[in-house]
């Protein structure tokens, strides 16, 4: 049924059923096989057969929020992809970063993007940031069965909340649990190291660019200690992805902009491989 119409080319009744602005809910009635997480797997999936995305970091700043991710995908002990994109614009005021099973993640993000646009078109207004966070929660919950069989997806949602006039960050666990994070957060295999690094470098009132540098430093620290996270690939000019969301909307930073910041970071690391030192005493 590729045309999605009935045998006579008409719109089937579920299309004209009023009172539903959720695309995912519409799919459950129209063609549930299109939903991610609906398949049942014969057994557990071996991690080395699937691509996995690794580290995502996000932090708020004075004017909004920024998110960054490394570009490595692994399959077992092999680097499956050097230039994978793990940060996706969800709509004009939010973005999602994904760690975990890359294939499932891409599917969930695509559904989430359509979900937000669909709501906007049907209702004539955009969902609140809390609404978006809850919708993503439902989708992750729908994937719980797959997660238990080895295809877990762990997203990080960052967006600008026009009502509160701040950037906000939401993290999730595989069961769909949603947790709002204060200041900064990180997910993925290198997240422990990234979070430790961010804890020392993060300043909530810093301007956007300083926060971007802090995130790039944190990704470097993650890749320094986690084998599944990738360092910036200078020879191929593959740099981390960075998304920034402010009151003006979402912006994916260009390679030139990120490249210049990465070069400066690498320069600093040539002198001090462990990265910038935080003062030991507060009064310093």
């Amino acid at each position, binding site marked *: 049924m*590729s*045309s*999605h*119409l009935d045998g*006579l*080319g*008409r*719109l089937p009744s579920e*299309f*004209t059923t*009023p009172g539903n602005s959720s*695309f995912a809910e*519409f*799919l459950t009635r*129209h*063609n549930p096989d*299109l939903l991610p997480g609906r398949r049942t797997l014969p057994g557990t999936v071996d991690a080395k057969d699937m691509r996995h995305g690794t580290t995502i970091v996000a932090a708020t700043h004075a004017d909004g929020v920024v998110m960054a991710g490394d570009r490595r995908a692994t399959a077992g002990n092999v680097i499956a992809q050097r230039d994978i994109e793990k940060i996706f*614009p969800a709509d*004009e005021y939010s973005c999602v970063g994904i760690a975990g099973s890359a294939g499932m993640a891409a599917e969930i993000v*695509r*559904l989430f993007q*359509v979900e937000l*646009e*669909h709501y906007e*078109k*049907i209702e*004539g207004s955009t969902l609140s940031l809390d609404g978006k966070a809850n919708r993503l929660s439902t989708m992750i919950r729908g994937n719980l069965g797959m997660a238990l069989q080895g295809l877990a997806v762990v997203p990080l949602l960052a967006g600008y909340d026009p009502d509160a006039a701040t950037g906000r960050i939401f993290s999730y666990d595989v069961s769909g649990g949603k947790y709002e994070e204060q200041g900064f957060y990180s997910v993925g295999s290198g997240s422990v190291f990234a979070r430790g690094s961010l804890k020392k470098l993060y300043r909530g009132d810093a301007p956007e660019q300083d926060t971007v540098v802090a995130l790039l430093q944190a990704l470097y620290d993650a890749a320094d200690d986690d084998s599944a996270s990738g360092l910036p690939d200078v020879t191929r000019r593959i740099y981390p992805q960075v998304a920034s969301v402010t009151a003006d909307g979402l912006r994916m930073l260009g390679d030139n902009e990120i490249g210049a910041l990465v070069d400066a970071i690498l320069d600093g690391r040539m002198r001090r491989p462990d990265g910038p030192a935080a003062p030991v005493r507060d009064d310093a």
Partner: protein
Amino acid sequence: MSMPLGYISPEQLMKDKAEYARKGITRGRSAAVLQYDDGILFVAENRSRTLHKISEIYDRIGFAAVGMYNEFENLRQAGIRLADVRGYTNARRDVTARGLANAYAQTLGSIFTEAHKPYEVELVVAEVGESAAEDQIYRLTFDGSVQDERGYVVMGGMADQVASALGRHYRQGSSLAEALRAAVDALGQQESGGHRDLEAGQLEVGVLDRNRNRSGRMFRRIQGAELERLLASTVESEEEPAAGTESGSPDSDSDDGQA
């Protein structure tokens, strides 16, 4: 040949249904869809800020309707669902206005023949192309017939008078402001032959702008200050048309569900 009591010939039945639908549609207000140099312009007379007659369907596809609000709103939502599900299963560029127009035509056609009451609606589905030559405008009527239009389309209300007025003022390749002025002037036509000046608050305006590239979505509403500026920019540039009658609407707002 004797006929059972209460027999109505198919011809009569269809004629009655068509007349019923047509009457319903003319009771409402008009809407116009026209090409301008950078895309497709949708203009409807609509006093409501929230009950829309014009809508985005997909990246390059827009929708305009007249008639019964609940009926065309239903079709609008169905169209968005169809476009989104097709874009989700295939790719965004695979969603076309032609496919959507066909689905609407089949749906309206079967409602017209099978249902007791036909839909009192008329729709336009338009897709903006890379250039004006590739623009597509489909007009769909209550019985499921489809027409492929060029230039401009007027539907609802006193569609014939408005269309002939628009025909006099419409120029191919005009700017957005010129096209908007032509449409607003034409929509101001009155049955008495008089003319009223429609203001920003009485209009619903949207465009599919082929040069706009926000994640591929080309539809945007023109409202508030921007609409007032556009309306004003054309009024002062030309000599006042000095239309006879004052602004005002003899056909009052009470049009029983007809938007």
